[in-house]
Structures are given as structure tokens and as C-alpha cells.
């Protein structure tokens, strides 16, 4: 019961923040809205017994990526509050597309009788240990590839963002 209420609260926070992201004209406010979405989604992860994922979401996304984004905003803004607004036609077209997408996907999701696990098993949560084991055995290749990718990205980003001589 409390879990259900918590789901609606967190989902509401995420959605509300996501709407704020879309509607805000100021890009920093959009970033703050994104923070709200990330936090809400992280709470949802906690709710779905994905503790590690929630924490990773917070530490990597909210603590790292988002700060990077805000940093980028600060470095690339010329005057404080200038927002580049889309034209009305664009906004309306985009809204229509979004509505179409929403209807389509929601319809799809409600149409399919999703098989679900036995409710008794639902409460069994995964420990960090089991995820760590899986990462180092079954998912070793993606894990290693991801580390290589991060290395490449690090070098690439440093190269791209360096000051021109």
C-alpha cells in the first residue's frame, strides 16, 4: 500500500520535472528539472529493488553528468537568461508528434498482456554481490568493452575540448 503510494509520488515527481524540463525557457531550469526527473527515477529504482542502480543513477547521472551539463551551460552561455525559443509552429508540431507517440506507446503497452512473475517472488531483491558476480562473469565482455569505450571517450573528449593552439 505504502509502496503503491510511493510509486505514484515518485512517478509524479519524475513526470512533473520532465514537464518542467520541456516547458522551461531557461536552460538551467531545464537542467534542474532533469535533476528532479533523475532523482524521481532513482527513487523508483529503489522501489523496484534496484538499489545499486538507483545509487549509480544518483552518483553518475545526477552527480556527474548533470554537473557536466550545467558546466557546459555556463561555459557556452553568452548572456545569463537568453533562451532560444522555437517558433510556435515548431512547438505545435512537436506537441502533436509527442501526443501521437504517447498515445501509440501507451496503447501498445496496455494492449499486451504482459506476463508477470509470481507475486511472491517479487520481493526478492538482488544484492550488489550478485550483480557484481554477473558483471565479472556473464557480462564480462560488455564490461570490458565499456571500460575501453570510456577510455576512448575520455581521450576523445579531452582532445575535442582542448584549446586550439
Amino acid at each position, binding site marked *: 500500500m505504502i509502496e503503491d503510494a510511493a510509486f505514484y509520488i515518485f512517478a509524479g515527481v519524475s513526470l512533473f520535472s520532465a514537464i518542467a524540463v520541456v516547458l522551461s525557457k531557461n536552460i538551467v531550469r531545464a537542467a534542474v528539472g532533469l535533476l528532479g526527473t533523475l532523482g524521481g527515477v532513482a527513487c523508483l529504482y529503489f522501489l523496484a529493488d534496484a538499489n545499486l542502480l538507483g545509487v549509480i543513477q544518483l*552518483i553518475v547521472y545526477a552527480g556527474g553528468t548533470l554537473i557536466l551539463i*550545467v558546466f557546459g551551460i555556463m561555459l557556452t552561455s553568452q548572456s545569463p537568461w537568453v533562451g532560444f525559443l522555437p517558433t510556435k509552429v515548431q512547438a505545435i508540431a512537436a506537441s502533436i508528434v509527442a501526443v501521437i507517440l504517447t498515445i501509440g506507446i501507451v496503447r501498445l503497452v496496455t494492449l499486451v498482456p504482459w506476463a508477470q512473475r509470481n507475486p511472491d517472488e517479487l520481493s526478492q*531483491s538482488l544484492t550488489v554481490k550478485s550483480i557484481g558476480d554477473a558483471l565479472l562473469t556473464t557480462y564480462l565482455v560488455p564490461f570490458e568493452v565499456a571500460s575501453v569505450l570510456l577510455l576512448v571517450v575520455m581521450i576523445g573528449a579531452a582532445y575535442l575540448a582542448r584549446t586550439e593552439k
Partner: protein
Amino acid sequence: MASITLPWVERNPKTLTSQRRTALTLLYSLAFLHVLLVIASWAWLTPLSSAAKDLTDGRIPLVLILCVGSVIGMLTFVTAALVVTFYRLVGRILAAPWVAFIIFIGAIVGIILLAWLHAEAFAFVKNMAHPAYTDVNPAPKIFGTSIEYEQSVRSIYEQNLEPYAFKIPFVGNVTVLAAYILWPLQFAIVRDLVAVGGIIGFISIVPGFGIWWERKIAGRMQSRMGPMRAGGWHGWAQSAADGIKLIFKEDYVPPSGDGLLFRLAPYFALVPAICAFIALPFAAAWVFRDLDVALIFILAMLGIEVMGVILAGWASNNKWSVYGAMREACQMVSYEIPMGMALLIPVMTAGSLNLGAIAEAQGGGFWTWFIFKNVWCFAAFFIYYCAALASCKRAPFDLPESESELVAGFLTEYSGFRWSLFFFGEYAAMFVISGLATILFLGGWMSPFPSEWADKLIDPNTNHFVATIIRGVVAENPLWFIAKATFMFFLQLWIRWTLPRIRIDQVLYACVQVLLPMMMVVLLGNTLWILAVDHWSWMQTTDMIINWILAALGVAVVIGMLAIASYGFRHNKALVGSMAADQLPGK
């Protein structure tokens, strides 16, 4: 020392006296009402309370409210009335020169009492917690563990726990009363609320005490007294007075800034710091939520805290603020890396990500603390502490608010209550990183003695209270944790007033080119070391020898520090620049 003066008392005695008279009348009448209520309810409820065997009995809340509540209310009103009556006396007592002595003695007694209470409650909770402690997915929790609370209380009620079974004349069975008082705690949400209240209360104490302490230390280091006026003894009420002042200050929002974000920013700085306490254990099972990812969670919260600073700087629309914000952003993002890597060292050494398990792996005396475990852990501790200082924007890394270059950095435009929220967040974060250092490197809530000693000291005939205290002192106790964390907190203050602030490029250099490579070497070294110790017996000997050398080093450092401190204490008049108090006229 001048006695405390309450200006509003002195200014217009007449009106104030009439006000006092009104207040006294009100208070005494309320107290009298409560006395009546107590008598009536006691007469009515005594047979009833002894009849209520079942904890779900709906009459218990009634007993609680009528009986216990009215006693508490009566005492409160009487105390208030006495204070109002003897306000001059109270003021004089607070201001009396000998109050320091009383507070000192009182503090010692209080700490002992507190220790006893803690130990008692700790043992109580831990015993209850025990069967469920290892459960994978506990039911609703208090202090992080699944507790069959009803049963526990019922067992008290049914006097199964011998030590609690004593009676007070006219009051009845204490355990029954205790059961009544603890009755609401059977609801998970009540327990959570109590725990949250406790956390928030603790967080409010930390800055209050910390700011005063910091100012006193600063004063001592600069051969002056620091705050001396507010309150009586050594300006102990200075933080409270500051708080009152800040609340009444003008709440200024820069008109050209982003008002919404400006108002929002302090909460972004404060709330994550509070959230970090969710997962920070004060002792085994003394944690709000015992997450298996507690360590990363705390790290994440410390990371998000930066967002508040950045937004504050941005929303102020002020050059200095933005500089401060950007400094904070790059500083924090950089220092998180060595910090996170340093935290891996104890995790690796203990073989567990669970903070409780890590702390309890260090229970065999101070030489088993991870800081003394081997050279890599030793290095990791210092790297962690440096990085933590930086991520907390404490001196010498307090670039975001460096007042000599950036006015006050991101705080430039802030005033009043919002300004104080930043400080709440900062001090809370300081305590969190100190606590983390304590748990991971300094044995957490384990005492510096091997915990087996407790079992040797307690023979089965020992009085229960004595046994609990012995266990608390010799084995484990939340107070040990608080004491160690407070010491680490003190170190931060000490460092702040000792080291000069460094430049921003030096800050980043220190992270990326010094701490990070060092940390990588340490990480690799520790891994190989653990492997080697596992595989070769001669490495175990080496490991032990190094452990002892490091422990001896630690003891030597502490003894040296104490010696220097005692020397300074004894010879402070002979030292250069003795206390300003000594130079006061009349001395």
C-alpha cells in the same frame, strides 16, 4: 565577567512585570489543571492499565494521553512558571563565573549518563534486532532492521526481562509504563518519523555546536578568546543567537537573478546532506536504512550537494558567484574520483560493501583499524581525507567561497535564513565525511580495545547495568563513533585555521596529478598485497610486522600530540602571544 543582561526586562519594568504576572497566572492554572487531570486519570486508569494485557488494546493510547501526557504537561508548565518567576536567578546562574565548573562537571556526568543510556538502548535494540539482522529482505524497519516490536514490548510487559522488572511505589510497574510509552512505536511509520526526527535533531545540533567550536578554535589559534558574550560561559549560546539574528535578517533576492533557483538552491545544498544520514550507521543496526550500497549512496549524496552550490552561484547572477560555482563544480567533480577510489580500499580489505561489516572487521583493538592495516590503507586514509576536505569545500580547498578573491563566492548574494541553510548543509556534510572516515578507517563504533575483553570482564554474575556499561566502553558503542567522528570533525577545523588557502589551479593539480596517480598505485598495491597475503605465508608475517609498525606510529603520533598539547596548556602564559584575556585590565 559581566552578568548577562536581558534588555527587554530592564527597559520597562512595569509593563513587563504585568506581562509576567499574566503569564504566571496562566501557567500555574494550566499546571493545576494538569494535576487534576493526572489524579483523575490515575484513579480511573490504574485498574484498567493493569488489565490491558494486549498491546493492541485500544485503551492504551488513552492511558498514554491522559496519564503520561498530563504528567509531562504538568511538569512542563511548572518548570516554565518557575523560570518566569525566578528569571533573574536563572540569568544569574547562567552568567555566574562558577558556571563553567558546573557545566564541566555536569558535562562529565552527562556524558557518563548518556553513555549508559546509549549502551542500554543499544544493547536493547541490538538484541531485538539480532534474529533479523542477516535477513535479506526485512519487513518494516526501525534503525534499519526488522524488529518484531510487538513481541519485544510484550516480553517487557510480561516481565520476561528480569532487570527491567522493578516497581516504583504509587506508580506501579515501570515496565508496564515503558510499554505504554513505547506503544506508538509498533507502527513502522512512527518509528521512521522518530528516526528522521532524531537525524534532523542531530543535524541541527552539529552546526550549532560546530560553528561555536570553530570560532573558539579560531580564537585560540589567534591568541584571543573567540565569542565570550552570548550565553554565559564562553559564549556557549553564540550559535543560537546567530541563528535568531539570521532568521530576522532581510531575505534578499537579487532582482536580476533567477528568483526561483535562488530560492531553491539552499535546499539542494541541505537536503542531500541530510539524506546522507539515512545510510550512515552510528552503530551496528543504528542506522535509518541499512542499505547494501550505503557507501556509494553517501558518496552520491555528497556529489549531489554540489548542485546546490552551482545553482546558487548561477542564480545570483553575480560574477563572483558564478566563479565560485564553477570552481565548486570542477573541484567536486575532480575530487570525487580519488575519494571514491580511496573508499574502495577498506571495502577491499574487509571484503564487504556493508558498512556494518567493515566496522566490525576492525573490532580487535585499535591496531586492527584499517588505517593501520597496511601501508596502502594508511595512504588511502590520507588521500580520502584530503579529497573529502576538498569535496566539502573546507579549507584549504575553500575556493568556491574564498572571501579574499571572490567576496564570498557563491554566498555573496545570500543572507539570512537561506545563508544559514548552506552552513547547515556544509556542517552536516563535514560530519558525514568524518563519520565515513571513522567507519572505514578508524574502527567505527568499536572501541580501541579488542572486543573479546568485554566477554572476559563480564562474568555471568555481573550486574546487568555494569555489564552493559562495560560492554559499551570496552566493546562497541555509538558514543565511540560520535567521539571519533567528532575528533575528525575537529581536525577539519584545525586544518582550516592552520593551512593557507591554495590557488584553484593548484587544487586541480593536486587532484589530477598527485592524488589520482597516487590513488591508482595504492589501489593496485592493495590488491596485490591482499593477494600476496592470501597466497604466501611469509607475506602474512610481513603484513603483521607492518601492521604493528604503523600502529606504533599512530600511538606515537597521538602521544606526541598530547604531549605538545599538555606542554602548551601548562606553559600557555610563557608562550608567545598569550591569551588576550590575560592582557585585560585588572589582571
